[in-house]
């Protein structure tokens, strides 16, 4: 079988081969050049390894992007003025279950991490308000179990909202939702992420990682609430 030479490497030395080779007639087709046992084949293998790692490290997935503002304005309808995280009033919306991709470096048994940004402002007052995105392991805990999860000490990312206007650039700085691997509190009998057996209909039952997302916010308890106008969630960069 003829093996076609494809062209230059992305770069030599410094431990880095990046980019994809391209052949003379088209783009993006990489073939090995060397025959079995040929010592010079190491160059091709190193380039292949570099290309694949680059692909894995660069291909983070969108989990959720959503506006909540009204049809004719910048603010959404809900503004929770209470300051009690255990109240259902603190729940803005729920999503899921979300299938989580194992990190290419940490593997299937390590909890995933998500990059989160929110667009939020307080309606008034001077105290700091807060927005949180929770990772919740089961549907039951999202709303039905919400008032009882008083501990709720883990599995969320918190954003401090200190201004009456939306942040520069429209969104908060990125926060990392690090989903814990251990349960916290007596009620959190499940982890905030879960292994779920999924029947693939005609193929086989496989186990995947899932979580649910609960967007929550509180005000100052003195009549001033929090608007959350948008949410954006991405997988972390796999190479991290």
């Amino acid at each position, binding site marked *: 079988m003829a093996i076609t030479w494809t062209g230059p490497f992305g770069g030599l030395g410094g431990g880095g081969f990046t980019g994809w080779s391209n052949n003379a007639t088209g783009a993006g087709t990489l073939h090995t050049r060397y025959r079995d046992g040929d010592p010079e084949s*190491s160059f091709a*293998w190193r380039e292949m390894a570099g290309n694949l*790692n680059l692909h894995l490290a660069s291909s983070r997935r969108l989990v959720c992007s959503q506006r909540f503002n009204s049809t004719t304005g910048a603010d959404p309808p809900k503004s929770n003025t209470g300051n009690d995280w255990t109240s259902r009033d603190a729940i803005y919306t729920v999503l899921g279950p979300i299938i989580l991709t194992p990190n290419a470096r940490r593997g*299937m048994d390590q909890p995933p991490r998500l990059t989160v940004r929110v667009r939020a402002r307080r309606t008034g007052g001077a105290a700091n308000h807060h927005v949180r995105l929770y990772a919740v392991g089961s549907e039951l805990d999202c709303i039905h179990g919400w008032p009882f999860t008083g501990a709720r000490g883990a599995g969320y990312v918190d954003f401090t909202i200190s201004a009456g206007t939306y942040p520069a650039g429209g969104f908060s700085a990125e926060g990392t939702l690090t989903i814990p691997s251990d349960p916290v509190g007596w009620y959190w009998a499940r982890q905030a992420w879960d292994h779920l057996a999924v029947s693939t209909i005609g193929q086989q039952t496989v186990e995947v990682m899932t979580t649910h997302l609960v967007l929550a916010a509180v005000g100052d308890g003195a009549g001033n609430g929090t608007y959350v106008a948008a949410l954006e969630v991405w997988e972390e960069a*796999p190479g991290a």
Partner: protein
Amino acid sequence: MPSAPRAPRGIDFDPVKVGRPCIQPRALEVIDAIHHHVQWRRMTGGCVAYQAGAAELTTPTRLGTATIPNHGFYHLVSPNARFIRVTVWTAGATGSGAADPYLTCTTTTDGTGAVFARVPHAGAPGASFTDDAVQVHSATVEVTPGSLEAVTLVQNSTSDAVRIISAVVREVPIGTVDPDGADALYINPDNFEPGTHIIDTENDDLPLGMNLLRRQGKKLLHSDNVEARITDVGVANRRDILSWSTGAPPADPANWNIYPSVNLPETSGVAVTCYVLGRATAGVGTLRFAFSGGNIDVGAIGPLGIYTGTGSIAKVSDTLSKQGYISVAGTFYHYASFVVEDREAA
């Protein structure tokens, strides 16, 4: 029978010493990494979510009428993915008819779809969700691997509607790469056992697999399924549908983050298609997808439908703000918008 994949890991950056031939264990690492990417990097597709107290949640309007569509998503199916699972959180239903309403989820591949989310009638949710009103329903529907599917949630009645809190589309994963799949992404690790030669034909499978992986692993970059009503006339008065500011974007526009997939180093950017589900009551509407390096306009939006525009965005990362305007006095309705990467040619 293909073997199950090993732990999904990125591979050692230095698998082969210069001047030495490749050995089978290193080849197996590459195979595992390719299979990991194909099998486990399942895509969650577009989503819609409403907050408690939202007008759409209290009184649903997305009923599939001539002027207002059902909820719809575009989902770019991964290689080897054959089913999607759509999960909907509901807050009961409107109306007082004898029969409880339900949803049907259809895809481009399965136009009949799956019936699910049959919910009882309940009072309109206020600022808080309650235990007895909120339910979760899921449906599994067939898709075509590697295709762009239009996923639609169809209400069975335009008078009694299911109140949708949120909906998420996600792919159903598979345990092993399909060795008989037409996309030929499977690489048999049994051909790379220690002590045997790595023959040329098998050697060639690895880079071929990665070429296909890169070409087919394109993805959804942004989705938005919430209505916006724009009455601003002319591009000079365009309205940002998130910040609701008008005119030229300020120095700090409200920007979404965009993270494209790896693309050829020889190309200057990543090719994308922008989709808008919308309509205009007079003239035509335009939604400008303003990326950091330039704009992609989706224009000529008239009767209710899907409109598209193509262009190229920056590699690695980009930002996006969306601005709409109408050509004459009237209303441009934005119902949904998406940004999807385009596949590279072979």
